[in-house]
């Protein structure tokens, strides 16, 4: 792991340097100002919170018609809850539903694409080479390490986010939660649950 960690660190340092150089050049040429860059980053990150994703799942659990709209066109459906994705075009989001017969898990093997607007910045392990390479080859072992144990006949489907769609998982609603309110249900949802590396 230490080798891969160093590699990740070197890669991110190289990217930071390139970004710094690019911003510096754009500023010197009068194309961008530092405050414009800061405002854009702030606007993006202030809207990108995991609470968005938790709210969306809780609504899907209590409202079957909303869930159908979410599974058909998640980009529009999350707008009903006031989650604004307009700063993120042309990226679209898609919800994939866990069932008794199917468990979904999300990855980006090419880089680290992630439903940032719904889940906030991604966990460090999500960006690691170990996760990205192993989860497509042997997802059951990776899920086992996360403590997710699935029936041997359950289908495991790995979604590799290779293009302009960002995936998130709608976990199965836990048993015995019939009396909970939508807000209480939202508190049960976790970031890993929406990636597929945890059950809820």
């Amino acid at each position, binding site marked *: 792991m230490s080798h891969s960690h160093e590699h990740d660190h070197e890669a991110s340092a190289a990217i930071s340097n390139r970004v710094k150089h690019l911003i510096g050049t754009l500023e010197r040429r009068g194309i961008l100002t530092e405050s414009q860059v800061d405002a854009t980053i702030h606007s993006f990150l202030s809207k990108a919170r995991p609470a968005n994703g938790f709210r969306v799942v809780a609504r899907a659990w209590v409202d079957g018609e909303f869930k159908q709209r979410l599974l058909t066109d998640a980009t529009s459906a999350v707008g009903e809850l006031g989650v604004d994705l307009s700063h993120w075009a*042309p990226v*679209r989001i*898609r919800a994939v539903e866990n069932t008794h017969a199917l468990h979904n898990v999300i990855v980006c*093997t*090419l880089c680290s694409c992630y439903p940032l607007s719904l889940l906030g910045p991604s966990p460090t392990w999500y960006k690691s080479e170990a996760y990205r390479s192993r989860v*497509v*080859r*042997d*997802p*059951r072992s990776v899920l086992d390490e996360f403590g997710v144990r699935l029936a*041997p*006949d*359950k*289908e*495991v*489907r*790995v*979604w*590799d*986010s*290779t*293009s*302009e*769609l960002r995936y998130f998982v709608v976990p199965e609603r836990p048993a015995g939660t019939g009396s909970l309110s939508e807000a209480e249900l939202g508190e049960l949802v976790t970031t890993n649950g929406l990636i597929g590396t945890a059950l809820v």
Partner: protein
Amino acid sequence: MFEVGEYVRTRVMNPDGHTRIPAYLRGRPCRILNCAGTFLFSDARANGKPDVVQSLYTVLFAARDVWGADADGTTSLVADLFESYLEKRT
């Protein structure tokens, strides 16, 4: 154009520069789950070529068709792939 449910194959390809088809999914049989619409073709954009619009398909692979017979038979893989990465299965 491909139809939803159609059995197709990813092309064997090694383009110079940026592409959005992972190496492990090239040259594999697969099935169209749905068409995600049209998008600017990433490979052309990233490589400084004029913008091209292409259909983007969500495509399903059986793990055994990707990794071989010793892979788990209950595992599948999905990726979003541009039309030019795919070909009819013969």
